[in-house]
């Protein structure tokens, strides 16, 4: 694999949109566009590592209040209660709905944490230019992209509950500040995954852009 010829090595560049392979213009100071679809040509996503890192850091910071602050306020007969994500998971677990508890825990706690770790690892390995386990790392990136879809589950749960549970005095559910932060976590981690350029995993140390 590592012996395969890279497009950059033979002065070629492919359009990311329409797939047209063109000769690379040696002048690098000006941006180039695809001859067929006029999309901007980029051998690698610009400042990919830096951007990913920025989004990732923002995500980690937001992750703290999203777990500490209550995400939902549920009031029943005789009083209300604000609950954090973990408290909600625990109450589901104690109530016997272990399946829902596991689902919420996975979507709300495990998935973001996995994303942080995965993207952090990917960033670090790309930065150090190691050729270690490139294939697995690519698979890891695909995993991050895949689980990204499911990260919004918790937000949807809160939104649905808040919309459905409206019985005035008998019971209401209202979203709380924590869910906004959680939403922020989901968005920032998605942006981080989006900013990361998996092709860099395969770059040899010399040709980092």
């Amino acid at each position, binding site marked *: 694999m590592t012996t395969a010829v890279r497009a950059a090595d033979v002065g070629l560049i492919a359009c990311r949109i329409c797939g047209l392979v063109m000769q690379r213009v040696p002048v690098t100071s000006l941006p180039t566009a695809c001859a067929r679809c006029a999309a901007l040509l980029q051998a690698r996503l610009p400042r990919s590592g*830096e951007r990913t890192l*920025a989004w990732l850091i923002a995500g980690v910071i*937001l992750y703290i209040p999203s777990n500490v602050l209550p995400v939902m306020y549920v009031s029943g007969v*005789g*009083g209300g209660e604000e609950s954090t994500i973990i408290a909600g998971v625990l109450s589901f677990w104690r109530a016997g709905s272990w399946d829902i508890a596991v689902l919420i825990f996975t979507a709300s706690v495990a998935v973001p944490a996995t994303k942080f770790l995965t993207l952090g690892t990917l960033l670090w390995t790309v930065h150090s230019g190691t050729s270690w386990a490139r294939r697995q790392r690519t698979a890891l990136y695909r995993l991050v992209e895949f689980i990204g879809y499911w990260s919004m589950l918790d937000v949807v749960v809160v939104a649905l509950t808040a919309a459905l549970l409206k019985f005035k005095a008998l019971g209401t559910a209202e979203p709380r500040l924590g869910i906004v932060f959680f939403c922020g976590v989901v968005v920032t981690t998605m942006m981080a995954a989006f900013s990361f350029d998996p092709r860099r995993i395969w770059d040899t140390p010399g040709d980092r852009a």
Partner: protein
Amino acid sequence: MSTDTAGDPRGELPTPRVLRRRWVPSLVWLVPVIAVVLGATLVINAWRTAGPRVIISFQTAQGLEVGKTLVKYRNVTIGHVTAISLSSDHNSVLVSAELLRTATDVLTADARFWVVRPRIGIGWASGLETLISGSYIAVEAGAAPARKTEFIGLETPPPAPHGLLGKSLVLHARDVGSLALDAPVFFRRFAVGHVIDRELEADGQSARVVVFIDAPYDRLVTRATRFWNSSGIDLTLGADGLKLRTQSLASVLAGGIAFEMAPTAQDVGPVTSGAEFTLFSDQAEAMAPPDGEPRYVRMRFTQSLRGLSVGAPVDFVGVNIGQVFSVDLDYDAQRQSFPVIVTALIYPRRMGKAYEVLEQNGTATNEDKMARLVGRLVARGLRAQARTGNLLTGQLYIALDFIPGAQPARFAVDARPLQIPTAPGGVQELQQKLVSIVDKIDHLPIADIGRHLDADLVGLDGALGGLRTEVLPAGTAAFRSLGKTLGTVDHALADDAPWRDNIDQTLVEARSTLRSVRSLTDYLDRHPEALLRGRHPSQSAVPTSGPQSAK
């Protein structure tokens, strides 16, 4: 930048240094900065609103839950319980609570904390909302300037909140009856306060009851006010009959205290909070004029005193002046008899005017003078008698009365307590009366009466014989003519009587009329418009005049 001039000048020329592009931070770094700012704002906000932590010790943590139980001041949430732990000696529960910063002022040194749980009493209920919402800790700020953060929680809600207008009064009682905490205090059957504390005195001989009288009723309490226990049903079965007294239905069950002004009061000055009063056991006792020092008298009865109980009244010419203190059995070795020794408490002050007179000439205060006076009274026939106060129950009371023709008795002037001679009375007297009645019945000429009655019956028999021969035949004739009359009536009512035909005919006509009415209603049911527009010619004819008249 030195220039060497040798060989190929091109080769000699220095190559420009390639500058590394200076790192310009991407705009994307704004995102984590915003995240940090948001987070920091939250932290600062939390830190700013975080108020004091308090530790409250309770006997039990019943109903308290970490994170759930709230601390409320005037029902406004000012904090929540953050931890519950046992004290080091395991005798109490330490409840830590985090309060809002704005609640700092509540934590005065005399602030009171208690757990609001549902409490249901007779006539009142509180904290019922906590049945569903769960208990909470209520706090009440005091007025002390000092602050502290460790408190001892009250086990029951404070009876009289700080700042509640009114007076708390201390009542001393021998017996608190069925008085419960929070039991009402009545004034003319209005609940004007409640019991806030009750405890035994240190010596265990009496009880101390603290009541709180709400403003503005507290000014009804004066130095002349008498308090009495209106607990439960006051059912007295005494020599003067059955007495049932209650204050209100609630006080029947939960007990209560009533107060009123003593009728003979002279000092009606106001009282201050904390004033002390006596709690009497009933209204009569409370309203009675002060008894003053009691005196003991002793009486020796030779009869059975079944029905005489301790506390039975002692009357002096009909006025209650005391009560029986003890009833003891004695043994008279000479006569081989068992006399009953009754000791009674006499309150001379209850004699009213008479006492005042005695007081003026010094008799009331001098024991010897008193004894001599009693001696003279005994000589005039003063005797103690056990009398039946209530025939139904056989309760006895002691009556001091002048008995005309009493047997002369010896009076020991020097004996203390005074010995008052007795006279047979009460049951004994009654027995004697019964015996005399039986004697009288015995002497009735019952045989003579029977003989006269017999002769009377013979006369009555003769009278009835006359009745049989003269009155009965006339009666038979009368019955016979009555039978004839009834026969005529019977004939008139027979099947073939002419008026029956008439009735039959009338009924037939009535029936056909009803049929017409029914067909009219049927028609109207189908064609209600006929009421307004009349019958349409094509519609079926109805043999009535109804539609026409409705036209």
